[in-house]
């Protein structure tokens, strides 16, 4: 049985199976784990076999011949699919423990359908298969985000309306492009578009524009950056990591698969060292990461905060891609994997916190480090990697992207990138300070550490960030295969050093880790040789001599967490009110609702019927005469 077909069939069958036995959730989620385990194993064995493919001929006639849906194991598709399935495996392990009676979101079958479409998108060879899986992914994601709750349904509706716009533009784009070359095959359509760029520039720009809007919508770049904050916050806690890391990569995959080869091959008006559309993409990525970082700093709900952080990270990836240079794309691919790892670690640790405390607002939590030390450690290493601090994995990819941007002299984009990564440091630490550190509120006095099954995936992710940080070769080697597959000539990367475009600026990461460890030893020695320390109670703080407990203040009143960056927020308030896409989109939604109720009113009153009949006849007559 062709392994590609098995990849599709296994999730499908288990989806229908689990739908039947949805009642007892333990078995359902173990099946889910088994399926993702199988997928990861199967994908692992497929590395290198780039000739694997599968196709099926449907009876439907398009362009005179029967329509063919086909899959191919391309290095790029394999890269994204394998790391996505790895993340899903870890999340599946987490959701077995997460989905007990109280939290079960009963979304396992739909999630399996989503994985089915996920595989389809990454391995699609022709546009029709790509579109079918894309649309299936959008609708199944709607049902998972809504998962039977009122508030989530509203958030999911916002997500749905935007992603349906995306699918409509994709459909229009596909039909336009396929008419050019009378076939749905992606490779052929790339070449036909490149030819079109030379003949009719504006039409080609329109075709590319349609595809780019779809991919921007799905990866939540600038004009469409506000749906993740609602969708991620309201979706089930164990689904959010999948949603924020894997699903935001479909847009990135689309950009790399289709847009980059076209922009690389066709001759376009240049802006400095890179073509204008690519620069436009970079500017969009820059605006997204800056705006998302600022918005993330002001959130009080921790899942919304990290939703905007995911949007910012995808902004970095798009900036990396827009450099069109080998180092830039290598940085972008590396960052998408890093983002999958550290963002899943963050969301899983938050899910563990929500699982135990049931609270999502940061200022209502505090001091959880004493009760959940492992979750704290996982979260700490994840945010160190997310902030791009050297010993851990997040640094290398950010560093690559900055190097590439500097080599291409995209000055203001690089400044935006650095602003965003420093701003990232602000909101990451805000969540650390208000959720894990500070005083422990009384109602969480007796919460326990996250259960074992949750702890295992979290620790694996933590070790993964460390391993990739120290030995970047684990990820750079597959990236080389992808880049050579895409036609870039890239010299093989070594296990420890990372090469870059600028002169004499290669970086040996293991050496960096080694230096950091020696520095740690030195400061540890200084810590040990000095005087003994005595452990005192958490509430015994310097409060100008007052004893707070006498004035019956509860300890968590001591957490300064609510208006954490209040002065900073006052600076940005006028700007944020001015351009808030969220307000425009929701007001647009209200206009449509008012129009629809007006129209349905038109139908209720009956006296207009005959009048409308004559209007109809008038249209026919006028139409006839023109």
């Amino acid at each position, binding site marked *: 049985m062709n392994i590609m077909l098995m990849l599709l069939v296994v999730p499908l069958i288990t989806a229908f199976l689990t739908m039947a036995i949805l009642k007892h959730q333990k078995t359902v989620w173990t099946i889910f784990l088994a399926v993702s385990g199988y997928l990861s194993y199967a994908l692992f064995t497929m590395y290198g076999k780039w000739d694997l493919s599968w196709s099926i001929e449907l009876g439907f006639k398009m362009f005179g011949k029967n329509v063919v849906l086909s899959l191919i194991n391309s290095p790029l598709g394999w890269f994204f699919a394998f790391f996505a399935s790895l993340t899903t495996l870890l999340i599946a392990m987490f959701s077995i423990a997460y989905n007990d009676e109280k939290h079960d979101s009963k979304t396992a079958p739909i999630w399996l359908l989503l994985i089915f479409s996920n595989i389809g998108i990454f391995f699609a060879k022709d546009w029709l298969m790509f579109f079918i899986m894309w649309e299936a992914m959008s609708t199944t994601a709607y049902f998972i985000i809504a998962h039977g709750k009122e508030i989530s349904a509203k958030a999911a509706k916002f997500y749905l309306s935007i992603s349906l716009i995306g699918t409509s533009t994709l459909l229009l784009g596909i039909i336009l492009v396929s008419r050019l070359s009378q076939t749905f095959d992606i490779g052929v359509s790339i070449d036909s578009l490149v030819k079109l760029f030379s003949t009719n520039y504006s039409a080609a720009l329109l075709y590319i524009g349609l595809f780019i809007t779809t991919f921007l919508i799905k990866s939540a770049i600038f004009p469409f950056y506000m749906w993740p904050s609602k969708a991620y916050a309201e979706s089930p806690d164990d689904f959010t990591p999948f949603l924020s890391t894997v699903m935001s990569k479909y847009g990135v995959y689309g950009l790399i698969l289709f847009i980059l080869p076209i922009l690389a091959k066709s001759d376009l008006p240049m802006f400095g060292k890179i073509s204008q559309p690519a620069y436009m993409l970079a500017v969009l990525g820059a605006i997204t990461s800056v705006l998302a970082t600022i918005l993330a700093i002001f959130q009080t709900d921790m899942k919304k905060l990290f939703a905007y952080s995911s949007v910012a990270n995808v902004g970095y990836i798009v900036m990396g891609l827009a450099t069109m240079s080998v180092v830039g794309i290598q940085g972008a691919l590396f960052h998408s994997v890093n983002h999958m790892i550290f963002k899943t670690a963050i969301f899983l640790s938050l899910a563990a916190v929500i699982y135990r405390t049931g609270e999502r607002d940061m200022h209502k939590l505090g001091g959880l480090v004493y009760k959940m030390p492992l979750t704290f450690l996982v979260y700490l290493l994840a945010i*160190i990697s997310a902030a791009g601090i*050297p010993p851990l994995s997040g640094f290398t990819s950010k560093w690559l992207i900055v190097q590439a941007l500097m080599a291409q002299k995209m000055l203001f984009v690089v400044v935006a990138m*650095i602003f965003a990564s420093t701003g990232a440091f602000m909101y990451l630490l805000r969540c650390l*300070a208000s959720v894990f550190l500070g005083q422990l509120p009384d109602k969480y006095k007796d919460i326990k550490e996250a259960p074992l099954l949750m702890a295992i995936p979290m620790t694996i992710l933590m070790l993964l960030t460390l391993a990739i940080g120290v030995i970047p070769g684990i990820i750079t080697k597959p990236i080389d295969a992808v880049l050579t597959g895409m036609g870039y000539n890239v010299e093989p990367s070594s296990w420890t050093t990372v090469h870059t475009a*600028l002169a004499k600026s290669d970086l040996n990461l293991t050496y960096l880790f080694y230096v950091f460890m020696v520095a*740690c030893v030195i400061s540890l020695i200084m810590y040990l040789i*000095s005087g003994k320390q005595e*452990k005192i109670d958490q509430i015994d703080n310097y409060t100008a001599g007052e004893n707070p407990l006498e004035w019956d203040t509860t300890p968590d009143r001591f*957490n*300064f967490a609510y208006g954490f960056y209040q002065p900073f927020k006052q600076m940005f308030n006028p700007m944020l009110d001015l351009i808030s896409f969220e307000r425009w989109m929701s007001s647009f939604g209200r206009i449509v609702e008012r129009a629809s109720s007006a129209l349905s009113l038109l139908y209720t009153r009956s006296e207009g019927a005959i009048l409308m009949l004559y209007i109809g006849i008038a249209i026919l007559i006028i139409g006839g005469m023109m």
Partner: protein
Amino acid sequence: MVVINIILYSLFAILVGLIFMGIGRKVSARMHLRYGPPFYQSILDIFKLMSRKSFTHNFVMDLGMVMALAGLLGTMLYVPIAGHSAFISNSNIIVIMYLMAIGSLGMAMAVTASGNPNATIGISRALTMMLGYEIPFFIIVLGLIISNNSSSISVIAASQAGSIWNWNIWHMPLGYIAMEITLQAMMGEKPFDAMIAPAEVASGPMVELSGKYLGLGLLTHAVSIFVETGLMVNFFFGGGSNPIDFVIKQLGIYLIAVIFDNIFPRYKIEQAVKFLWIFPTGIAVVQLLLLAF
């Protein structure tokens, strides 16, 4: 061999940093027409703090303070001192920028773990300030990288070798002015020390640090002075031919900062960020445009 090298460099940096702080206090005392403490006063302070008993609220405080010092030492090891650095690999500006973040992360984590609201307010101010000075700093650095097309400091320092006249301070005067203001903010000196304001938030982050932790905090501050002034020397003052020349230049820069420190009152935190984003950034952008085109 490298380990001994690293230990020597670390001790050298700490010693130099502490002596700079002592000299700084002496100079500011002399500006107040006071006699001022001996120049080795900071070393005495460090030994006193290290020998005292200290209080800790939980293991995160210890972890955080150790990490802060480790981060700064790691950064220091990446700064080339007068041509040769602790180990062979070339030093990269972007690495240093991100490594400096470990210092503030460790400090922030340790201090917030103490649970004192003053400390958390201090940290939120420190991070806002960090965002404030990071932008102009990077624009200046970007100008340097673009002008000699490499992000390694040793290349930048080497490009200014030879006579005094081809130091970068003369090629990029605007960059120097912007860097001077940003340096003031990076070192947390007077106009931009809203995070350690003793009057408002009882010495901000250091409110709960007693004995040993305060010692580690002071050491981190000393090494950060060494690093920041070291960067300044490498960027604009030709990197120095030998260590003594390098240290003297550093001392000069630090004293300029101390003099500014004694003149200015204190900015409110949003005024400081607004100031940093208008003047130094503006000057740096003009410098960048001059260099790039």
